[in-house]
């Protein structure tokens, strides 16, 4: 187990493994997102209250889930990097940030477009919306902080602390609709009791979520490879890499 862990944390091995794994994440992600889109737009029945506007949730909910999941992954990577001084974990955290930031932008934009017909406003300083906006600022702050250091090690350490401290915002986003009387609707699928959404509407959402998770993994493979190359100064294996991989 430790040997495997040690092997994976070696830059050349991680670089090659990520390259090999990428197509196995990417193409299933494309397929699942296509099926989820078809299911959500065509097969799922119309909602009796929200009519066809509820179909926006097929892209809004997976984006929102991923915006939080990616942040937690980034903070865990940053913490591992900080505690065990593992460079690859810092590279993972750094690679997470732009992907998570894009998911957060998508969440805010699609939520806003959904809010206009449903609530009559594009934006409201509601706890869920405000905490999601703070999440975007945390991602942007993390990236800006990294960019402000020339030295990678110092950038790793400083940004890791920001990522770990910022994780406190994640449960606030997640439970804001339960803790406060929010304009945003409550949870439908993550309730401990049975989900309050019919199976015919639920399955495209789950397929879409899985598709988004695999998409994140695929983009992560490319981004972590870039991060590894940016940090690697040892020429011996760099000269062997193939531009096509």
């Amino acid at each position, binding site marked *: 187990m430790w040997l495997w862990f040690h092997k994976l944390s070696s830059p050349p091995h991680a670089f090659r493994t990520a390259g090999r794994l990428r197509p196995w994440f990417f193409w299933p992600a494309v397929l699942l997102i296509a099926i989820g889109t078809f299911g959500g737009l065509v097969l799922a029945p119309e909602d009796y209250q929200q009519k066809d506007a509820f179909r926006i949730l097929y892209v809004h909910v997976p984006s929102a889930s991923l915006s939080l999941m990616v942040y937690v992954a980034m903070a865990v990577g940053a913490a591992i990097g900080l505690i065990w001084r593992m460079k690859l974990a810092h590279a993972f955290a750094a690679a997470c940030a732009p992907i998570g930031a894009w998911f957060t932008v998508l969440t805010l934009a699609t939520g806003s477009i959904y809010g206009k017909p449903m609530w009559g406003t594009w934006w409201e300083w509601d706890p869920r919306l405000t905490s999601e906006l703070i999440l975007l600022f945390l991602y942007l702050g993390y990236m800006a902080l990294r960019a402000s250091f020339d030295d990678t090690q110092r950038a790793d350490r400083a940004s890791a602390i920001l990522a770990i401290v910022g994780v406190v915002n994640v449960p606030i986003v997640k439970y804001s609709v339960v803790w406060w009387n929010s304009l945003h609707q409550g949870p439908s699928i993550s309730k401990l009791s049975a989900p309050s959404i019919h199976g015919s509407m639920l399955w495209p959402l789950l397929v879409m979520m899985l598709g988004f998770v695999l998409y994140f993994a695929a983009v992560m493979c490319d981004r972590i490879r870039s991060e590894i190359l940016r940090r690697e100064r040892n020429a011996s294996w*760099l*000269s062997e890499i193939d*531009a096509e991989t």
Partner: protein
Amino acid sequence: MQDFLYMSGYGPYVWSCFLLTFAVLIYNAWQARMTLGEEIVKAQRRARTQTGSDT
């Protein structure tokens, strides 16, 4: 077909959300791919200079 595009009057909202999502997903994947390509070129150039100075 027209009903499908109309989406009970919510067409512009639904379609703009889906188009925006796909645009962002495609851009994100493409940008990560491009950055990797650039980093590979840079790393190979660096490796060549280092091996050149070693010999």
